[in-house]
């Protein structure tokens, strides 16, 4: 176990060395230097007109997207990840429980669904913001959670805190299929699921790495080809492509998607205050009428 004392030299040394590098880079680069080359690795540089102009030259991913219902993988198609034997047996049992009506739901207590669910489970709208240095994905599904893909060339953090969505960084690549945003996501919590349904999924169990190739296959159709490396539960990467269509209709703009509001009934209490009162639920999540005000 690393002692606190041993950490001190690292904590002190790192900002100092970064500052020196930043100062050297600042001297070398003139004011015309591209802000997004991140001269100072501790600062998000102020976007310049050149940064915005560069975005205009990239494929335009911005706007509201709906899952493509004509796609073979809507919602899952015949997705069959290359499970290892233990995971295969677990998944088969979850499928059996779901089939007999005693589902073992995987998304509980409003914890974020995280990656890869963020991209492959949603049937709701998704909004993409394209701004200097990053791509931001806003979901309607799963309580309006968000995902950020760094495009500013920053390195993967050393010893990052694992999160539900992980740490994502991407770069544009010219491929025979056209310009493709290649994104690598790491530092994902080991508890996030590789999902095949609301009650069928396998925890990734650590060391999950996801590579996505995101591109416009038509002006208003976006494909995300995911390559999911989960060495503790898969024998080979699980490859699954999801497809989204862009919509300009305002009725499709994403709306608030609170996670658990529907688990409560809106009531007015004796003091005249508007309150949320929990609804009784059956195991499995079905609301029951017993606690509803008569």
């Amino acid at each position, binding site marked *: 176990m690393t002692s606190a004392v041993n950490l001190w030299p690292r904590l002190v040394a790192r900002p100092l060395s970064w500052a020196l590098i930043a100062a050297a880079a600042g001297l070398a680069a003139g004011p015309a230097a591209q802000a997004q080359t991140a001269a100072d690795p501790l600062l998000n540089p102020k976007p310049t007109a050149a940064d915005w102009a560069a975005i205009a030259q990239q494929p335009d991913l911005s706007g509201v997207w709906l899952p493509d219902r004509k796609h073979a993988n809507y919602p899952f198609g015949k997705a069959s990840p290359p499970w290892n034997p233990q995971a295969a047996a677990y998944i088969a049992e979850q499928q059996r429980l779901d089939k007999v009506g005693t589902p073992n739901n995987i998304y509980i*207590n409003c914890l974020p669904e995280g990656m890869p669910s963020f991209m492959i489970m949603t049937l709701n709208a998704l909004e993409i913001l394209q701004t200097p240095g990053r791509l931001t994905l806003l979901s309607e599904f799963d309580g309006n959670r968000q995902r950020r893909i760094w495009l500013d060339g920053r390195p993967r953090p050393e010893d990052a805190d694992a999160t539900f969505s992980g740490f994502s960084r991407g770069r544009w690549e010219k491929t025979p299929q056209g310009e493709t945003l290649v994104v690598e996501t790491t530092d994902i919590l080991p508890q996030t699921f590789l999902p095949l349904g609301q009650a069928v999924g396998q925890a990734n169990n650590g060391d999950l790495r996801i590579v996505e190739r995101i591109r416009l296959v038509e002006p208003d159709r976006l494909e995300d080809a995911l390559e999911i490396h989960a060495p503790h539960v898969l024998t080979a990467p699980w490859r699954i492509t999801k497809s989204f269509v862009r919509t300009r209709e305002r009725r499709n703009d994403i709306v608030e998607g609170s996670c658990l509001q529907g688990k409560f009934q809106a009531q007015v209490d004796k003091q005249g205050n508007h309150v949320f009162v929990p609804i009784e639920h059956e*195991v499995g999540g079905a609301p029951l009428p017993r606690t509803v005000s008569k």
Partner: protein
Amino acid sequence: MTPRTMTPMLSFLFSRLFSRLFSHRRPAAGLATVGLALAAAVPAWAHHSFAMYDGDKPRVLQATVKEFQWANPHVLLWITTDEGAGQKAGELWTIELSTSPGPLSRIGWTKRSLEPGDKISVEINPLRSGELGGQFRKLTVLKTGQVLTTALPNPDEKPLTAPAAKP
């Protein structure tokens, strides 16, 4: 909750709980622990499977809308059954829609699609447990004849976007 619907996970939690209770040296503290643990042991489901509803035994209820709750992640409808063939009158049922206001508003629903007092005929997948709950399939508002479903329009009939131009 019935033993039949108790998932293995919950069985495990309960068995842990009771073994803890009976091995505890201070009964009063043990009971308090159980009270807290019981409250915390039952997870709240956000998006969940609808497998606890029986899709093989759909039934139709003649009912009056008590309340229509337009909320995420699943819109809820509370109804009171009316006189009708094969049903008891005056029962309060909770009907869960398998979707949320966002997708529903895209196919024409609004928070005013149903009002308290509306007489409806509603088709549901009933809970396997026999409790008075069901998964929404479709309904007809008797006064207007309007049929409401959660089915998305056929994408071949109604494109989600303008046809894509070739690059």
